[in-house]
């Protein structure tokens, strides 16, 4: 048993409680948030892979109890997981580390650009970190559901904490959808409990693999899949929830938006891995994944093209890019799934860069309407160039990370006999490039409108530093993708 695995969830939870407790004491919460934010990625890196059984209740098969009767050793009880299990795998390590980097940089920018830090906002950021880390670590579907609901409440809180117009309306809309998505997910989990007698993913996948092709159970398994799939669509913001998800991103402050999109991405990955383990043998699994992923990509980029608000544009592009992760699982095989997950990681880094980088435009002008903006390249050329490079990374331009992951997905599609998917991916990437370049032109290159007023003169250096660090990460992952593809591939090999 590895004691430090639960600390990845417990430390941000406790930090969140203390930040709320000390709300109002500016210096204390700034120092505490900085230390915990910096410590989380370090903890993630130093924790070794393994399993943690809560309460020490491991399966009987691992307990080395002598003289157990054959009545028990021959039954399914022998291998049953009696307690919540956390599994720290290479995939969990890569994504929780990346989440830690995103959270730390978001907090760093926030603390340095705001004179007075908000305890409740930092509380929500750390609760978000804890909840999505638990989603990735947990091998228990009900535990995942609990953290899924906590994540939904936190996302609502981050919207409420922002100063955007109509944020309360958006928060209520999101809560209403959450109150439909959550119970439907729970119903799917309950049906699996009824079939298998357990909510542990390992137990369920073992039981289901024998049941999927039996006529008596296949319909029920399919029904459970459809319910959990619906919950997954909601959690990750895939169609038909792409509109509300992008609305949510655009209503939060830039630091909040970057955390929100990281939450959605990790929820998507945690649930898609769980679904793959449980329902991967279903005949329709791959087809449904490919369909919803392509729909998400097309809707994302086409809706982004129609936006005049650049925050919504980035939000739509970000939600559309999530489709690449599903596509990897839809194509199937170690290489394709690794490519999809690598693209997910890249998207998390690049979207954070764009939300924080373009957040400086709002910081300077108090508007995100591209029709009212222009000529901002003269205000800070270095930031404008970094934002442009970030956008190119998202579109899949070499030598950035987005290029490597999209190329891997194209290769996987061609190798598995899906040339049409490869064509769609290339077209979507070209469309993303044009959408971003058009927005960049409107904000930075076109002549500055006469009525454009500036509420601030310069961008905080901390934000420049944050965006630079994120850009360097994009470049490193583009040049040395094996830093993350090797551990991801290693984990996927264990699942297949």
């Amino acid at each position, binding site marked *: 048993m590895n004691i430090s695995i639960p600390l990845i969830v417990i430390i941000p939870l406790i930090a969140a409680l203390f930040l709320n407790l000390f709300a109002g004491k500016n210096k204390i919460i700034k120092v505490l948030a900085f230390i915990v934010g910096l410590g989380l990625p370090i903890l993630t890196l130093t924790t070794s892979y393994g399993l943690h059984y809560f309460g020490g209740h491991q399966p009987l098969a691992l307990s080395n109890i002598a003289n157990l009767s054959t009545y028990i050793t021959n039954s399914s009880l022998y291998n049953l997981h009696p307690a919540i299990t956390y599994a720290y795998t290479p995939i969990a390590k890569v994504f929780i580390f990346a989440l830690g980097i995103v959270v730390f940089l978001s907090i760093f920018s926030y603390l340095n650009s705001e004179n007075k830090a908000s305890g409740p906002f930092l509380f929500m950021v750390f609760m978000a970190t804890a909840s999505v880390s638990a989603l990735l670590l947990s091998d228990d579907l*009900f535990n995942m559901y*609990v953290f899924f*609901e906590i994540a*939904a*409440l936190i996302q*609502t809180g981050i919207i*409420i904490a922002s*100063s*955007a*117009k*109509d944020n*309360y*309306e*958006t*928060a*209520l*809309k999101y*809560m*209403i959808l*959450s*109150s*439909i998505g*959550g*119970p439907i997910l*729970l*119903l799917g989990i*309950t049906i699996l*409990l*009824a079939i298998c*007698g*357990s*909510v542990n993913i390992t137990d369920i996948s073992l039981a289901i693999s024998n049941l999927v092709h039996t006529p008596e159970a296949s319909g029920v398994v399919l029904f459970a899949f459809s319910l959990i799939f619906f919950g997954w669509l909601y959690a990750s913001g895939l169609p038909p929830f792409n509109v509300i998800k992008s609305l949510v991103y*655009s209503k939060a402050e830039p630091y909040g938006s970057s955390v929100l999109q990281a939450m959605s991405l990790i929820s998507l990955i945690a649930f898609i891995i769980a679904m793959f383990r449980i329902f991967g043998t279903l005949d329709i699994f791959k087809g449904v994944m490919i369909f919803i992923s392509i729909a998400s990509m097309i809707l994302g980029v086409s809706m982004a093209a129609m936006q*005049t*608000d650049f925050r*919504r544009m980035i939000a739509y592009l970000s939600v559309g890019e999530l489709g690449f992760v599903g596509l990897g699982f839809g194509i199937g095989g170690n290489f394709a799934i690794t490519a999809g997950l690598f693209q997910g990681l890249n998207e998390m880094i690049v979207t954070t860069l764009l939300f924080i980088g373009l957040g400086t435009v*709002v910081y300077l002008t*108090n*508007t*995100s*309407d591209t*029709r*009212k903006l222009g000529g901002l390249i003269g205000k800070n050329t270095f930031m404008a160039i970094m934002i442009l490079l970030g956008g190119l990374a998202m579109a899949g331009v070499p030598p950035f990370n987005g290029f490597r992951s999209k190329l891997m997905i194209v290769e996987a599609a061609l190798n598995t006999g899906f040339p049409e998917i490869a064509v769609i991916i290339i077209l979507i990437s070209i469309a993303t490039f044009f959408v971003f370049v058009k927005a960049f032109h409107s904000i930075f290159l076109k002549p500055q409108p006469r009525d454009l007023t500036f509420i601030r003169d310069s961008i905080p250096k901390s934000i420049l530093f944050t965006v630079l660090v994120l850009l360097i990460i994009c470049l490193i992952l583009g040049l040395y993708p094996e830093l993350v593809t090797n551990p991801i591939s290693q984990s996927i090999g264990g699942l297949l």
Partner: protein
Amino acid sequence: MILLDTQLLTLFTAGALIVIGIFAAIYIDNIIKKIVGLSFIEEGVNLFIISLGYKSGGVIPILLPGMNIKWFANNSAYPLPQALVLTSIVIGASTLAVMLALSMVLYKKHGSLSASKILNHESDMGDEL
């Protein structure tokens, strides 16, 4: 047989609650009634979970002194659904509280509880951040 029917009845009630809840969430305009409908969905799912743990003629899943273990294993209800539903109720209460709090704020802002008025009025955004 009667007990089995009780379980079936519970499952049907759970199904009815979920269907009524979804109908209310989609078609009723008043936000408070919509939220009540959403609670119906939540409670329907909770009832469904409880009914799974039901065992006809069973006993509570607590091993008391003097009980025969084999008899207990064969006759006790399945305890896991009860544990799950407790957590689910707490989550439902939290979600409900947040939604009601948001409704109060929005009622003060708009002077109405009509979802079509409150949730669909959203402007073009982009400005007035």
